């Protein structure tokens, strides 16, 4: 029973991640792309937890949520957007 629930969860998360990854690359504004990549990192953390890797999940959450988002936002502020 747990296995089929986890299978459903992992398939759903995987589909969301793929769609979000494509969206991050084709969306117009860079700031939206950064927000969506933050979502992909956080979903990856959920997948790592489902794959019985809590250490990796904790690391991915702590790095992907705030730190890499801030780094990209800083670069966006220094460079300016597209066009």
């Amino acid at each position, binding site marked *: 029973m747990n*296995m*089929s629930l*986890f*299978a459903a969860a*992992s*398939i759903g*998360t*995987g589909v969301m*991640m*793929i769609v979000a*990854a*494509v969206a*991050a*690359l084709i969306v117009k504004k*860079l700031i939206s*792309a*950064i927000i969506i*990549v933050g979502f*992909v*990192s956080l979903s*990856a953390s959920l*997948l*790592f937890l*489902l*794959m*019985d*890797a*809590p*250490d*990796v999940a904790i*690391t*991915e959450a702590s*790095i*992907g949520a705030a*730190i*890499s988002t801030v*780094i*990209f936002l*800083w*670069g*966006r502020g*220094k*460079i*300016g957007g*597209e066009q």
Partner: protein
Amino acid sequence: MSAEYLFYWSMAATGLGLILIGLWGVLTRKHILRIALAFTLADTGVNLILVWSGFLPGRSAPIVDSSVTQMVDPLPQALVLTSIVIGVAVAALFVVVGVLASRKSGSADIRHMKELKW
């Protein structure tokens, strides 16, 4: 098509998909930060595939407990643990070099960064 089968392969499909999408983004995008984002996506995909290679459905996390009998492989997880932190340091370097290059060439578009071509 058991649940176990779907559970196992959906992970691999996600990681592979992320790698391919990231690669496509690196090849086709023009804004330097967009390329950095695509690179981060591919990085996440590689980490997923690595952890997946040590994953067996139905076993538990590699933290020994009185209730635990069978565990997944801890080695790939240890590798990925360090890879994630390196990944963010590399992304920071990527962004900083991108900012510097765009300052030099006056645009964030990689087609204008002529001096980086060899």
